[in-house]
């Protein structure tokens, strides 16, 4: 092994150990409240403690982590109503809500119910029969008569970072153009990895639909909602597989120490800015293949964006390290929930083309692990985080061994 390569490996190894130690040992307060129990346990508790509401609830259709509790949805097969409950961590009271299709005769508001809602001080209530609902005119105001029952459920304020998302989309398009216009030696391994990730996710669609809460609506049968989600996911996966063929990742492997450092950086990013939706994925029965596939796909996409960034920075040859360092600092300060993705893209833009996808996938893989460590505190969730860590380490070890057997240490293939 050449001396400079050995120095790089040693530096990378030292950095990996330092970052991993920071990620795993330091007590970092995560952004978000850790879930002490799985959504299954929350659903059982709601079914045990809440009143039956006079209607069959149907099956559990989905869940979502909201603040310090789980919001769980139930819907019968006919889809005419949807029961949702927010089950907080600990012994606090559960909040629930039932929504019914507006055309159900039972949701027409009676005079008694209308009077209870507007208060006794109003004298005359005039009914207005509408299509599928009954409104009540109360002096100058109108009470709409198809009301959901129960209280309002808490919701997480959704903070979109439109500028950052648009920038990432632009980098993806730039990356696709670069891979097509400046082709390199395409990696069959990455194409196969992406194909396998897609093929693993496809049969998991019926379970993954549980994470798409907005598709379940009162008046829409759950199988149609699942079909809509499955259709969208299949189209997306199809487009990804097409992109993997059309814009393939470039062959090459980075030094193993850099990969370890990338995974450790991802774990640190996950503990600082965990992906809140990943804790919902951890509630699935077949969570391990789902998490692994998501990490591979997200890593590949980040690699594509990194190729775009690298090419865009090509004109800044002299100041490239400074620009990359500034982007890295900016990512840590402003990327918010996109921290891991932004760090992965910047890190991958700093290395050779053939090593970029490896680096981004390693960071995203680490981010998944870090997110689970930060937010999923139940036994199965933590166990899966460590299994993912082991799987990642195994992949790195196998790749390293394969490269060593082939006669060149990892990291040299792309430089050759």
């Amino acid at each position, binding site marked *: 092994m050449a001396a400079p390569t050995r120095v790089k490996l040693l530096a990378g190894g030292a950095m990996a150990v330092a970052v991993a130690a920071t990620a795993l040992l330091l007590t970092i307060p995560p952004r978000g409240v850790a879930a002490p129990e799985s959504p299954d346990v929350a659903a059982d508790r709601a079914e045990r403690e809440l009143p039956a509401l006079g209607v069959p609830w149907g099956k559990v259709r989905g869940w979502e982590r909201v603040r310090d509790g789980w919001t769980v949805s139930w819907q019968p097969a006919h889809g005419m109503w949807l029961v949702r409950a927010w089950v907080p961590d600990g012994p606090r009271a559960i909040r629930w809500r039932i929504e019914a299709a507006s055309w159900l005769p039972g949701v027409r508001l009676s005079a008694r119910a209308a009077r209870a809602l507007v208060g006794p001080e109003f004298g005359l209530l005039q009914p207005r029969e509408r299509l599928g609902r009954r409104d009540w005119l109360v002096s100058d105001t109108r009470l709409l008569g198809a009301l959901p029952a129960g209280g309002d459920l808490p919701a997480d304020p959704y903070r979109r970072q439109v500028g950052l998302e648009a920038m990432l989309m632009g980098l993806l398009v730039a990356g696709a153009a670069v891979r097509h216009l400046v082709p390199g030696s395409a990696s069959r391994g990455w194409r196969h990895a992406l194909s396998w990730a897609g093929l693993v996710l496809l049969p998991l669609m019926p379970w993954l639909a549980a994470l798409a809460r907005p598709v379940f609506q009162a*008046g829409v049968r759950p199988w*149609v909602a699942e079909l809509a989600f499955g*259709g969208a996911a299949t*189209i997306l996966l199809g487009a990804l597989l097409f992109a993997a063929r059309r814009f393939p990742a470039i062959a090459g492997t980075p030094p193993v120490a850099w990969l370890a450092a990338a995974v450790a950086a991802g774990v640190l990013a996950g503990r600082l800015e965990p992906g809140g939706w990943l804790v919902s994925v951890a509630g699935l029965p077949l969570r391990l293949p789902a998490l692994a596939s998501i990490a591979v796909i997200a890593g590949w996409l980040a690699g594509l964006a990194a190729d775009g960034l690298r090419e865009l920075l090509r004109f800044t040859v002299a100041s490239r390290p400074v620009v990359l360092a500034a982007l890295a600092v900016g990512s840590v300060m402003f990327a918010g929930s996109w921290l891991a993705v932004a760090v992965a893209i910047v890190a991958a833009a700093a290395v050779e083309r053939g090593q970029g996808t490896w680096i981004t996938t390693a960071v995203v893989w680490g981010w998944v692990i870090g997110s689970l460590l930060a937010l999923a505190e139940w036994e199965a969730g933590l166990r899966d985080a460590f299994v993912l860590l082991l799987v990642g380490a195994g992949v790195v070890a196998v790749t390293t061994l394969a490269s060593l057997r082939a006669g060149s240490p990892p990291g040299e293939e792309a430089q050759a």
Partner: protein
Amino acid sequence: MERLGYQPIGEPAAGFEGDQELAWALERARPGPGGVGLARGEGGALRWRVVFPGGGEVQVTVDGLVWSLRRPVPSAPGPDLFPSLARARVEAAVAAAVPDPAAWRLVRAQSWREGGHTWERAWFVGGPGPLPSGWRRELELEMAGSTVLSWRRSVHPLGTDLGVVTGRMAELRLLRRPAMLGLAILVVGVLVAGAEAVAYRESVAPMRGIAYGLVTAFAGSFAADSLTAAPVQGVVLALVVAVLPVWTDLPRPRLRLGPAAGVALAGVTLVGRAVILGTGGWAPVTSPVAADMGVGRLLAESWVPALVEEPLLRGALPALAAPVVGWWGAALLAAPVGALLHPVPSVPVLASIGLELVLQAGLAVVARFAGVGGAVLARGTYEALVRRASFPVGSEWDRVALLGVAVGTILLLWPRRRE
């Protein structure tokens, strides 16, 4: 209004109001032309609202039944009704509002004093009448003094009929989202292809693209209810059409085949809906009710889907995906995306999606033999013929609906250029 003793002043403004759920619920309750007739008449789903500038407003169904009426309060509405006679007078006033007063009975009444007059308001129930069993007609009538000021009819559908239609419509709205996602991904693909074409200095058609984009945006501004959609569609289509020459594998356009294929596809739709009805399912006879009634609206609503969707689904998608799955594979990939964009509710819900799939496959065949241009003409002709039933009777509507057929006839009769 004159019968009520009021002479309206000024030139009235008329606007169309359509209640899509009610119209299709009537068709669901009475499948076939019977339901369509009810939607246009006794069901009150399709109405004109006529507003007089000097006061007063009338709603008339498209078959000519007065659905609601309101006149201004006169300064002297006549003597107040004596309480013991009020009920009889109010019941007698129903004869002015409905053609079958004997079928209506008073269910509730109230009276109050306001502005120096006694006001009476009464609610009547008319049973199903000509409506399907389980449906109910209602009427609210208002009098001031001894003058009838207004009445308003309403219809109560049977929960099952309304639920089936409304539920299916909600489901199809949800199923439309994956198709929109597919189109968005396709647009990104076209963007990348455009970047490649510029980088490799390939032959593109920018002027043709701009012209097509302008036509699409202009037509879209008549069809869309929000004006933001039309310019976006125009820009996207300008890009697609400009890039089309890059994809040299696309079949050459043979426009003369398009309109004939469109007529055939319209026939397939009618037969398909008849088959669904005949096999115990249900599908509406009429297309979605337009938000506005006008010849321009029919023209735009028929041709905008053709101008927007065909270049994407029959041009860009096959061109982009053909290297991976072949032309036919790519064309058939477009079929499910197109099938989810505009299906009408049906029982079972997959029946109308299946019918749309057949039509999309037909358009793929048209695109194979007549190119993207032929597919645009076929789709426009087909849409105009199928949508015609949702618009009023009249020769100008017929002319617009037959525009594609006329173009097709001219193209077929046009002497062929010798090669």
